[in-house]
C-alpha cells in the first residue's frame, strides 16, 4: 500500500471514529452553550437511544434482568433500522423535554457543581434501571442487513460499510442542526441566548420555550447517536457513561456552544486516536487527554468557542 493510501486510510479511520463523538457532543455543546447547564446525564440519553433503537430494530432474546424474570424472554418489535432512526429521536426528544422541565429548569441558576451532582446522579439511576430491567450483560445490536459487511472504497480499499453510513448520517444531521441554529428565528434566539440570556428576556422574548426546544433537540441528537452508534459496539448499560467522557472532551476542545467546534473537536479526537494507533499504539488513550490539555492551556474557551460576554 502506498504512503498516500496509508495516510488516507488512517485519516478516514479517524474521521469515522470521531463521527459518533461529534453526534453525541453537538447536543451536549448546544445545551451547555445555550442553557449553561452541565448535563452529565447526556450519556444516559445515548443509552436510552441505543436500547430503544435496538428494541425497535430487532427481536432481542433476553438472557437476564427483571424483564426476563417477569416472563419476557424476547423483547423488541423487529421493525428494522429505518423506523428506529425516525422513532428514537422523537422518543428521546420527549425524554429531553421532560428532563428540561423537571430536572434542568429548577437548577439553571444553581452552581455548576449542583448541576453536575444532579445529572450525574440521574445518569446512574437510569443506568442502574437498565441494568435491573435488562441485566448487566451485553447484547448484539446487529447492523441493518443492507449495510453489513465491508465495501470497497477507492484508494483505501475495504472499509466497514456501516461506518460510512455513520459518517453520512452524522454529516446530514450536523448540517441540519447548523442550518436550524444559523438560519432560523429559533436559532437566532438560541444564539442570542448563548451570548446574553438576560438581554434576550429584556427584549421581551420568553426564553423558556426555546430552552425547552434546545434541550429536546440536544437530547434527540444523543438518541440518534445511540441508534447509529449502537451497531458499532456491544450494547450494555455502561455505554452511556463510556461515551460521556470523550463527548465532553470534544466540547472542551471545540468550544462550548459551537457546532463547528464540536465537529472540529470530534474529528481531532478521532484523528489523534487513529494516528497514534498507527504509529504508537500504547499512547493512543493518553493522546486525546494531552490534546485536551494543550487546547485548554493555549485557548481555554476551546478552538472555536467564544469568550464569555457575560461573566
Amino acid at each position: 500500500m502506498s504512503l498516500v493510501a496509508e495516510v488516507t486510510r488512517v485519516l478516514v479511520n479517524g474521521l469515522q471514529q470521531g463521527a459518533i463523538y461529534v453526534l453525541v457532543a453537538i447536543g451536549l455543546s448546544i445545551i451547555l452553550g445555550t442553557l449553561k447547564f452541565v448535563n452529565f446525564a447526556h450519556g444516559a440519553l445515548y443509552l436510552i437511544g441505543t436500547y430503544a433503537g435496538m428494541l425497535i430494530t430487532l427481536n432481542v432474546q433476553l438472557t437476564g434482568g427483571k424483564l426476563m424474570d417477569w416472563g419476557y424472554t424476547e423483547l423488541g418489535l423487529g421493525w428494522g433500522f429505518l423506523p428506529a432512526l425516525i422513532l428514537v429521536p422523537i422518543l428521546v426528544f420527549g425524554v429531553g423535554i421532560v428532563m428540561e422541565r423537571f430536572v434542568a429548569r429548577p437548577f439553571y441558576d444553581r452552581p455548576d457543581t449542583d448541576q453536575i451532582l444532579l445529572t450525574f446522579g440521574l445518569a446512574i439511576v437510569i443506568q442502574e434501571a437498565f441494568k435491573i430491567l435488562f441485566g448487566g450483560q451485553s447484547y448484539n445490536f446487529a447492523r441493518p442487513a443492507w449495510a453489513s459487511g465491508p465495501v470497497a472504497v477507492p484508494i483505501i480499499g475495504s472499509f466497514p460499510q456501516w461506518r460510512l453510513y455513520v459518517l453520512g448520517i452524522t454529516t446530514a444531521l450536523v448540517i441540519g442542526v447548523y442550518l436550524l441554529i444559523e438560519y432560523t428565528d429559533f436559532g437566532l434566539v438560541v444564539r442570542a441566548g448563548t451570548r446574553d440570556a438576560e438581554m434576550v428576556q429584556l427584549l421581551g422574548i420568553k426564553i423558556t420555550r426555546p430552552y425547552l426546544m434546545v434541550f429536546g433537540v440536544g437530547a434527540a441528537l444523543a438518541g440518534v447517536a445511540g441508534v447509529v452508534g449502537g451497531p458499532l459496539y456491544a450494547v450494555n448499560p455502561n455505554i452511556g457513561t463510556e461515551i460521556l467522557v470523550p463527548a465532553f472532551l470534544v466540547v472542551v476542545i471545540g468550544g462550548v456552544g459551537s457546532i463547528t467546534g464540536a465537529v472540529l473537536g470530534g474529528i481531532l479526537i478521532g484523528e489523534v486516536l487513529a494516528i497514534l494507533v498507527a504509529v504508537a499504539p500504547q499512547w493512543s488513550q493518553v493522546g486525546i487527554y494531552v490534546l485536551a490539555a494543550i487546547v485548554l492551556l493555549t485557548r481555554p474557551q476551546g478552538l472555536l468557542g467564544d469568550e464569555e460576554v457575560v461573566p
Partner: protein
Amino acid sequence: MSHGDGGPTRRDVVKVAGATGLAGLAGCLGGDSSGDDNEQTDTEMSDGTNDGSNDQQSEDYPPLGNFPVQGSKVILGFNVPQSGPYASEGKDELRGYEMAVKHLNNGGGWVDDWDDLSGDGVLGKQVDYVTGDTATDADQAQKSARRMIQRDNALMVSGGSSSAVAIAVQELCQREKVTFMCCLTHSNDTTGKNCVRYSFREMFNAYMTGQALAPVVTEEYGDDLDFYQLYADYSWGKTQQASMKKFFEEAGWSQVDSVATPLGTKDYQSYLSEAANSGADALFLNHYGLDGANSLKGAIDAGMDQDMEIVMPLYNRPMAQAAGGAIEGIYGTVAWDAQIDNGPSNKFSSTFGSEYNGRTPSGPAQLAYAQTLQYAAAAERAGTFYPPEVIKQLEDYSYSSLGMGEETMRKCDHQAQRAVPVVKGLPESEQDSGTFYEIVNLTSRDDLGYGCSEGPAAECKLGSYE
C-alpha cells in the same frame, strides 16, 4: 470500610472481644455480610466460647488467617466483576457461587454425588457468603477481598475474571493465609511466576490454549501462515500473546507483528485497520469479555474474515452473545460448555437451568460452582478448616467430578491438569440462548500441559503453608 491493614490486629481484637464478652464490638466487626450470622457470633462470643472452642479441631491447630471459624457459620467471599468489561461473566459466576452455597447447605446438584460432601453444610457449619465487586480492576478487587477477609472473616475467597485481579487477590490471600480458589483467570502467571501456596486454579491457562489450538487451527488453515496479534495490555493478554507466538511458530507459522491494546478499548477499528494492512494471513484477537466482542465485531464489520483467518483464542458464552453472528466459523477455546455430554456436565446444566429460569450456564459459572465445592470437599476430607490441611487435601488430588474427564490439581504449581475444549463459532441463524459454538475437539489432558520444571511452572515458587 476495613479495619486497618493488618490481620493480626483484627484477630487480637476478636480475642479480646470474646474474652471480655464485648459482644457489641464483635457485632461491629461482623459487618454486613449477606447472611445474618452476626447475632450467633455475638452470642457465642459473649459466652466466652469463642477462639475456636466451637471448632473441634482448633486445639490441634494454632489460629491462622481466619481460622478457627467463629460461630455456627463459615463465611465464603465471592469477589466477582459486577461492573467493567467482564461484568457479564461476573454475573454468571455469582449464579454459580450462590447455587454452590445452596447445595452445600441443602444438598442437590453435584453435592449429592460427591462422597466428601453431605449437603448439610461443611464440617457441621452452615455456609454463608459475602460478595464484592472487583470492577475488573486489581486494586478494587484487593480492597474488596481485604474487606471480606478482615471485616467479614471470609475463610475462603473465590473469584475473577481477569488475571490481573486473580494475581492481586491471590497475593493478598497468601499474606492473610486465606485460601483463594481462582475462578476465571487464564494468564500463565497465575500458576507461573505469580503462583502462591494459598491459591488453586481449575481453569487452564494461555499456554494450554496454545497447545490445544495450534494443531486444530493449523490443520484447518495450513501450516505456513503469517499471523498478526492484537492483545489486551495486561498480564493475561501478554502471556496469551506469548503462548500463541510460541505454539504457532513451533507449528510453522510466523508472527508479523503483535500490538497491545488497552483493556476496555471500545473502538478497535484503527487497530484492526493496521492489522488488515499488515499483509498477514491470520489475525489473533487476544481479547476477552466485552473487549473480545467489540474487537471481533469490528473485524467482521471490516470484512477482515474474507482476507484473513481470525482466531479468538479464549471464548465464552456472554461474549459470544454480545458478538452475535460475528463469531461464525471462528476458532477458540472455552473453560467449559454445556454441550459437553457427560454425567457431571449434564447434571450441572440441568440443575442450573432449573435454578435460574431455564438458563444455560456459562464456563465461568461452572468454574465458580466447581471451585466452591472443591474447597468444601477438601475441608471435609481434612476434617478441619485449618488452611494448611485443606491445602494439602487439594494438592495432587485427582478427580473426575467436574465434567472435564480425569483431572489432577497438581501440587507443584496448583494448576489443574485437565482437558481443554476447542470450539468453533456457529452462524447467527443456528445460535440460541445457550448455544453459540460447537465443540470441535475436547483436547485430552494427555496432549496438553507441561512438567513441573517446564513452561510457566518452572517459574513457580508457591511459598509457605503457614
